[in-house]
């Protein structure tokens, strides 16, 4: 499934991308699976969103999808059905259905 991810500005700078990135996530689409795919595509993001070893989310980073705050959900919980059904990404509406990783400022 193709997942669109919106990164905050600092991580876009680090990953040298503009706007959103598109990831091909295999298997169940969970927060952990999206992060795994993100870090595989952009290795420089390892350690910037979650801990290298424990995979615990960095304290000031939050995860949003479908206008929901999923920051405190288990990384193994499937993402909302509305989110999961919007594959491929091109069939999604522009707002509210991409998965975003944001810093709280």
């Amino acid at each position: 499934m193709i997942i669109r991810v919106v990164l905050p500005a600092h991580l876009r700078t680090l990953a040298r991308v503009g706007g959103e990135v598109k990831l091909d996530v295999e298997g169940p689409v969970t927060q952990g699976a999206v992060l795994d795919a993100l870090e595989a595509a952009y290795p420089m993001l390892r350690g910037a969103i979650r801990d290298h070893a424990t995979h615990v989310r960095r304290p000031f980073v939050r995860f949003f999808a479908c206008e929901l705050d999923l920051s405190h959900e288990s990384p193994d919980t499937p993402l909302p059905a509305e989110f999961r059904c919007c594959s491929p990404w091109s069939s999604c509406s522009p707002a509210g259905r991409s998965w975003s990783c944001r810093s709280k400022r």
Partner: protein
Amino acid sequence: MSGVRVLVGTRKGGFVLTSDGKRQRWDVSGPHFAGWEVYHLKGSPADPRRLYASQSSSWFGQQIQRSNDGGQTWEPVGNKFVYDGVPGTHQWYDGTPHPWEFARVWHLEPSLTEPDTVYAGVEDAALFRSADGGQTWQELPGLRGHGSGSTWQPGAGGMCLHTILLDPANPERMFIAISAAGVFRTDDAGRTWRPMNRGLRSEMLPNPTAEVGHCVHRIARHPSRPDVLFMQKHWDVMRSDDGGESWREISGNLPSDFGFPIDVHTHEPETIYVVPIKSDSEHYPPEGKLRVYRSRTGGHEWEALTKGLPQRDCYVNVLRDGMAVDALDPCGVYFGTTGGQVYASADAGDSWAPIVRDLPSVVAIEVQTLA
């Protein structure tokens, strides 16, 4: 023709300033890593094209960037800094035990001979080493494990290992300094360490002459005299003539002996520079006058260097990594301020001019002299 490259770390990115040997006209490139704090950048003495940069953020943690072309392009390398074994605790501000937690890399010190070898001084204080160009990092655990680690405490800026001095004549010897623990020396390439703080006096400690706990802000040395060390402590400017075994005060006639950076003239081992700051609660120059002080006698007797520097209404600070010298003749001296100015002197401090005036707050300055 010879030239210089000034590497500037700021609160919102890194900058590279270049000039020919006259040091009158400058090109400014950057910001690199825009929006991120750049605590330090430094070039390899063995290969001046190889640069390392510490890029960090309270939100997104630590990154290490590496350049192989003198700062024109950069690539992120390893950012995994894991303490060896169970990290244990150090003293928190209130004196209670606090777990060791990695926060950021304060200082990167490339090897004098191997471009792929680089040391990192980090907060919470520890020393790491990479032998593969920054891809992987291993702690030298003998420092934290030497026995006093549980009594170290953070200075106002955090418990940082901020100074790493390598010895050109003896690869087994290294000095490091921690705020607030003090100076430590290894004579076996980092396996074991000894505190080197005899002669320091810090009134903020329960025992002002304790073996560790001193808030050392910076140490510097001339490569031709490895046993002569100069120190800017929280308060007091100090000197050691015996490789750190003992220290004596050389503050002399300074208007304030509080400050952060200290550096040594490239060609005159007894000529040293400091930037006096009013106090630990007022981090700006005395009387609103930005003055570098130079001693040509290895301390005690200091002269104010003011030509070209603001002499009224100036309330900036110069941080501990914020001063550097080049190797040209006459020696160039550079410093950056929290107000975003980078000042340069092409005549050993006699006169100054700003290279740039309006960068983000400057954290660190390093200089490379190019053939």
